[in-house]
């Protein structure tokens, strides 16, 4: 058996070991990836059983900021532990270092690698030729997914472990670029038809197109992120890649019953006299307050109806949906734990 799940059968994605998290800029992709890693690390059968790797590929050190740790170097480092001892490790993959590591591993190119660097070839391969860069980033991630447990180096609990990590979460590039980023196969097909890069790309595609991978989309209930999500899901499916769930982030609470909402959304639909009456017992029946609250209420109503329409559009994609609340206090470790618990409760992890 793999380490995929005995006790975590409630998750919709219990067979998945690589969770790729994408989303339009500003939707909270990194936050959700972090919360998902925490959620996946929790709930092991024994204390400290689960181990999850959170991978960052865009070199922004967003994960370090999220967990309030020093910048993550190009090495796997533990950044968080769940109350039941589950561990979240983090790795910021750097394409240049991944290439050097790769060269070292396969070719023992000591001096040649140095020469490559001197002539800017490393820079060329990692910065300019986009397909190659993506192969390196996804390749390193897939290596972590496939990595076998090594009991001698690990702890007691590692003895019955098949894989080093129970799950890997990737904080991936934004929705607009995700299919291109993951479809490394077609990306390099024009460039490298044979050779090691090509082989690497093929190996990556075998992991990415398998049932152990799911690509989740983070979105807000706004037109543009929703449209991008739907386009992204369609593109991904066309490319034969596995679309996972849709995670609606920063969903706002609904404070009015539906009938009132519909009325309040119309101009003048909110009964000012009624509101004034309602505010009287607490001494707030002031015309300015009434007008301000009424405006707030009608904006809220329009927003909720709009969000409800966007939710329907998302539902048409057929992807399972999970909603996370907007946290007014911002995102710190407590906030992340709240979101992680919410993801587990809703079956996303």
């Amino acid at each position, binding site marked *: 058996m793999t380490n995929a799940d005995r006790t975590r059968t409630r998750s919709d994605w219990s067979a998945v070991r690589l969770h790729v998290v994408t989303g339009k*800029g500003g939707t909270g992709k990194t936050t959700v990836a972090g919360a998902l890693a925490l959620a996946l690390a929790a709930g092991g059968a024994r204390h400290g059983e689960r181990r999850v790797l959170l991978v960052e590929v865009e070199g922004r050190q967003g994960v370090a*900021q999220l967990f309030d740790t020093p910048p993550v170097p190009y090495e796997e480092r533990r950044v968080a532990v769940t109350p039941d001892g589950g561990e979240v490790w983090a790795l910021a993959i750097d394409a240049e270092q991944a290439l050097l590591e790769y060269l070292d591993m396969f070719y023992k190119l000591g001096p040649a690698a140095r020469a490559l660097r001197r002539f800017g070839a490393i820079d060329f391969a990692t910065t300019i030729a986009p397909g190659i860069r993506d192969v390196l980033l996804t390749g390193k991630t897939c290596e972590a997914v496939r990595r076998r447990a090594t009991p001698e180096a690990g702890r007691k609990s590692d003895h019955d472990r098949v894989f080093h990590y129970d799950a890997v979460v990737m904080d991936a590039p934004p929705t607009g670029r995700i299919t291109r980023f993951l479809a490394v196969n077609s990306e390099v097909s024009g460039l490298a038809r044979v*050779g090691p890069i090509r082989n690497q790309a093929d190996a990556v595609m075998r992991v990415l197109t398998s049932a152990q991978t799911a690509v989740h989309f983070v979105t807000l209930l706004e037109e543009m992120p929703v449209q991008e999500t739907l386009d992204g899901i369609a593109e991904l499916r066309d490319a034969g890649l596995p679309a996972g769930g849709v995670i609606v982030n920063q*969903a706002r609470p609904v404070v009015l019953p539906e009938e009132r909402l519909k009325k309040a959304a119309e101009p003048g639909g909110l009964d000012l006299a009624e509101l004034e009456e309602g505010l009287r017992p607490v001494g*707030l029946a002031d015309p300015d307050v009434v007008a301000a609250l009424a405006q707030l209420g009608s904006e809220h109503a329009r927003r909720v109806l709009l969000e409800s329409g966007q939710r329907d559009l998302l539902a048409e994609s057929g992807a399972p949906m999970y909603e996370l609340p907007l946290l007014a206090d911002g995102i710190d470790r407590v906030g992340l734990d709240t979101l992680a618990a919410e993801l587990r409760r809703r079956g996303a992890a």
Partner: protein
Amino acid sequence: MTAATLLDEARRFDLDRLLDAPATRIVVCCGSGGVGKTTTAAAFALRAAERGREVVVLTIDPARRLAQSLGLTELDNTPREVDGIDRSGGGRLHAMMLDMKRTFDEIVLEHADPERARQILANPFYQSLSASFAGTQEYMAMEKLGQLRARGDWDLIVVDTPPSRSALDFLDAPDRLGSFLDGRLIKILSAPAKMGGMGAFKLITGGFGLVTGALNKILGSNLLGEVQSFVAALDTMFGGFRERAERTYQLLQTEGTAFVVVAAPEPDALREASYFTERLATDRMPLAGLVLNRVHVPKADITGERALSAAEQLTNGKAKRSARKAASAAESTDPSSVGAVSSVSAVTDTAVTQSEESQARELAAALLRLHAERAALARREGRLSGRFLANHPGIPVLELPAQAEDIHDLDGLRTIIEQSL
């Protein structure tokens, strides 16, 4: 009104003064992804045009409906005049969407003879490079900006920047691409073809075999061959890329250019804004101000605490009248429950039986809670923006209030600016 709540007069970004000044020729809107750069750029351009300027706005990746409202139905690199604007001030507005690949193709066609151009355009390496996002989009945005400026048909160009994670990419990427195309590796790769192993080649002979050998090993020999033929075909354009990028970069340092950093009042966006602000100062590029987009402003003059306790009071009174069940369902914090018709209609059914007085209280309590939430959000945003402003004294700020609905027409664009003044 809104700006005064957070900022004193001295720090207010006088947008109209910037847009009206004939000396202002280019406005660049930058910031990290998802902060509303495109909308801000479009709103500024519209405002300037309706105040009498001849404006073109270069958008990178607008939302579909916003693009439609600007008359942009095709991604064709052609500036088109926007209908529906107020031309009484004598201004006009054109808008265009950047087509990255086409812009790159045009440079090739312009600089190479037809046979060479054909070779380059057909080269798989070129195709990958020109369609990728690793710097090409930023380079092409700058290239297009240079072209629009050279055409001289407009007296103000408003530029949106590509949706990268980092706001700095816009400044860095062109140089990266330029230094690659113009760089040492390219020279080495093209050296055998150009010089037959003579001259300068001698200096690097030692490393060269090692490099090509290693590259062949990693990439497979056909890739290296394609890079070499790409390079050979690009030969005529050497130096050109670097120079062009530098020229445009210099354009950004001139007096007539104003950078506007766009950020949402959130930690990540403000951090990027911070990096960018410092970078502009280092490169001596003129920063006109910070746009804080989607700022939440409490509408009623009651503290969040007061509102919450009042809501509590109203709900408790009602609870005694045994409407507790309905109230808790109505105030559910589960947003998806609004879609669940059955639970909602159950609530309203119960509500019908409630007295009018109790319904009024319920409404008041719900809106007070909403206000308390808004006030908490506003306070957090104020704290975050306040910290940014304290670290960057002297930067003028324009706050654009959060809108209840997405902006996708000219009226929406007008409204956000009007509300900020």
